[in-house]
């Protein structure tokens, strides 16, 4: 009998498995749309209409950055809470409840997006991940997003309940580090999602239903970015957690500093939200002063990431030296590069270092004229969410799958090949994207070739950049195929009794070195709220004062035509999506059952 997670928490393991499978399903869909758009945009293979490109792009964005990342997050956060507090969830029905709400929500949104491919319904939502008004999606799109976000809110409630119950029994203990990370991240998420909730519930959803005439495009856009920047930390924090609590163990060492890890998460809690205006440096209607304040906050938000870089590398070094590594750099050779969990996370961290640099450029105010909305930005977030997060998630999957299924990983060699292939593929793709952006090639366009002018490459040619992107896309797709082969292969394996124990890294400098005040979540939340009020009150008031709460009369561009007379169409759509949800749930249930039965 092993002491894996599934042995300790069999019921919770099912929830985590369901969350992981939902996440992987979204990853598969997002990957398919990714390669379609890569080949279309670079002109290598086109089988869709360029107008449909934006439906593909919307699906790629929403499925990957919303469903893939957040479903994975709820999986590992549930693992982190139950493992570090050493107690199961308080109420399993509640846990399945928020999972179900998230699944229903994302299915509605997904149906609204995918319906854009067919003329059979007038439902469509090709508004991209950012859904800027006056582009208008079908109400289902917004409704689904709301349900999904509410699901994550309940997930947070679940984890807080566990912590409260644990605290009642352990009044004098420090919050274990993984639980601390979950709680601070969720507090940040509650503050951040207020922006998107306000944008959708007060403005976009009523507007798409025809209840209000018009919206203020600058206001809804600003509310989106209120949420849109911190959401990147919501993707990133689970990856950071893995680098802090799993990577040192896999490296053969201990976490260098528990107190600094807490400082890092506190900094993310208080600084993530009051920075969103840095996505709007080039927006007319927002004063330069507000932009400068947002920049200052953003620049200081570099601090926790820079601290993380040191702590994580030092922890890896500790492992390497315990394994016999020597010298200033020679210790790198003593790291367990053969282990896909390690290699994947280390390569992801390396890519994140590069992404850190392009992020510093993005954070700069006036230099934004150079890169704003160019392909550079796409290169940047394919390094951050597309590699630092996605590759870390895939790498830790190789550790988590045995833990939550009770089965041996199908193939460690394939897994190693997979993470290395992702690294190489993304190198080509994101490098060419960054370069293309500096030439002024825009993001979010189906055919970056114009009649009146051409982009001039400083080195090589635009055709070479396209070739790099296409090559990268193909390698990434191959990598995904290997990943799914491993997931499926593992699911088909028999139950194993010889699994590693469920544990995470110890620390060199433990929580007893951390000032007690770091665990005062109320204090940090209050500071975070105050900073948000400082950073956002005046810009928001100014925007409302200038353009009105509901904005000027607009020529809306409905990317779906909602005929209010034919409510039946809506009913049909709801019915269809419900069926789809049921099917998804059924699939998940089947997977769960398949996982339970040895």
């Amino acid at each position: 009998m092993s002491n894996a997670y599934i042995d300790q928490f069999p019921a919770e393991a099912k929830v985590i498995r369901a969350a992981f499978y939902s996440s992987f399903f979204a990853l598969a869909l997002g990957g398919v749309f990714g390669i379609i758009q890569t080949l279309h945009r670079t002109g290598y293979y086109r089988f869709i209409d360029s107008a449909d490109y934006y439906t593909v792009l919307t699906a790629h964005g929403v499925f990957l950055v919303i469903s893939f990342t957040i479903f994975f997050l709820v999986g590992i956060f549930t693992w982190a809470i139950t493992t570090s507090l050493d107690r199961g969830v308080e109420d399993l029905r509640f846990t399945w409840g928020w999972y179900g709400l998230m699944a229903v929500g994302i299915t509605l949104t997904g149906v609204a997006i995918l319906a854009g491919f067919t003329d059979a319904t007038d439902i469509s939502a090709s508004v991209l991940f950012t859904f800027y008004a006056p582009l208008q999606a079908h109400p289902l799109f917004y409704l689904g997003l709301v349900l999904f976000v509410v699901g994550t809110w309940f997930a947070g409630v679940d984890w807080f309940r566990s912590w409260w119950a644990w605290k009642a029994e352990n009044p004098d203990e420090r919050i274990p580090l993984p639980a601390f990370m979950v709680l601070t991240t969720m507090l940040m998420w509650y503050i951040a999602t207020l922006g998107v909730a306000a944008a959708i519930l007060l403005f976009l959803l009523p507007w798409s239903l025809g209840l209000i005439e018009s919206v203020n495009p600058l206001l809804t856009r600003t509310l989106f970015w209120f949420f849109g920047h911190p959401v990147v930390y919501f993707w990133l924090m689970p990856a950071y957690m893995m680098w802090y609590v799993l990577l040192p163990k896999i490296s053969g060492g201990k976490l260098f500093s528990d107190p600094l890890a807490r400082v890092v998460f506190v900094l993310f809690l208080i600084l993530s939200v009051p920075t969103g205006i840095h996505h709007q440096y080039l927006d007319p209607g927002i004063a330069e002063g507000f932009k400068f304040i947002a920049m200052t906050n953003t620049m200081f938000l570099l601090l926790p990431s820079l601290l993380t870089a040191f702590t994580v590398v030092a922890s890896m070094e500790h492992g390497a030296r315990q394994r016999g590594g020597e010298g200033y750099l020679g210790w790198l050779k003593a790291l367990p590069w053969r282990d896909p969990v390690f290699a994947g996370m280390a390569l992801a961290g390396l890519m994140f270092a590069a992404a850190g640099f392009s992020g510093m450029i993005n954070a700069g105010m006036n230099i934004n004229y150079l890169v704003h909305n160019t392909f550079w930005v796409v290169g940047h977030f394919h390094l951050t969410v597309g590699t630092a997060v996605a590759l870390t998630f895939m790498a830790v999957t190789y550790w988590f799958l045995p833990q939550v299924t009770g089965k041996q990983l199908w193939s460690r060699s394939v897994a190693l090949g997979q993470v290395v292939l992702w690294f190489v593929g993304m190198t080509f793709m994101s490098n060419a994207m960054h370069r293309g952006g500096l030439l002024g090639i825009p993001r979010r366009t189906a055919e970056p070739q114009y009649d009146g002018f051409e982009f001039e490459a400083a080195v090589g040619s635009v055709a070479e950049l396209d070739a790099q992107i296409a090559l990268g896309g193909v390698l990434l797709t191959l990598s995904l195929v290997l990943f799914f082969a491993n997931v499926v292969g593992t699911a088909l394996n028999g139950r194993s009794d010889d699994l590693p124990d469920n544990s995470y890294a110890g620390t060199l400098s433990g929580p007893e070195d951390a000032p007690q005040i770091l665990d005062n979540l109320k204090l940090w939340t209050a500071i975070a709220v105050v900073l948000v009020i400082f950073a956002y009150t005046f810009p928001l008031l100014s925007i409302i004062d200038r353009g009105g709460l509901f904005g000027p009369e607009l020529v809306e561009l409905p990317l779906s035509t909602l005929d209010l007379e034919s409510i039946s169409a809506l009913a049909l759509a709801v019915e269809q999506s419900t069926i789809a949800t049921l099917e998804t749930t059924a699939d998940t249930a089947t997977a769960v059952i398949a996982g339970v039965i040895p």
Partner: protein
Amino acid sequence: MRISKGGLLVVLALLAPLLVELRTVLAWVNVELSVLESAAIGLILVVAIFVWAFWPDNGNDGPTSDSSPR
């Protein structure tokens, strides 16, 4: 073998960004490489790394300070 197979794979992977950026860096000093030339350099480096990796360890240090192979 001086390096584990996994380590070798990772070293080869790290070669990719170096090669891709090499062209750009060289262009600043007015050395223009074609795609083919870059690929040729890459191939040479790959072969060099393979030779280094599989050369019998005779105690001499490789390009980086060496530790005993595991």
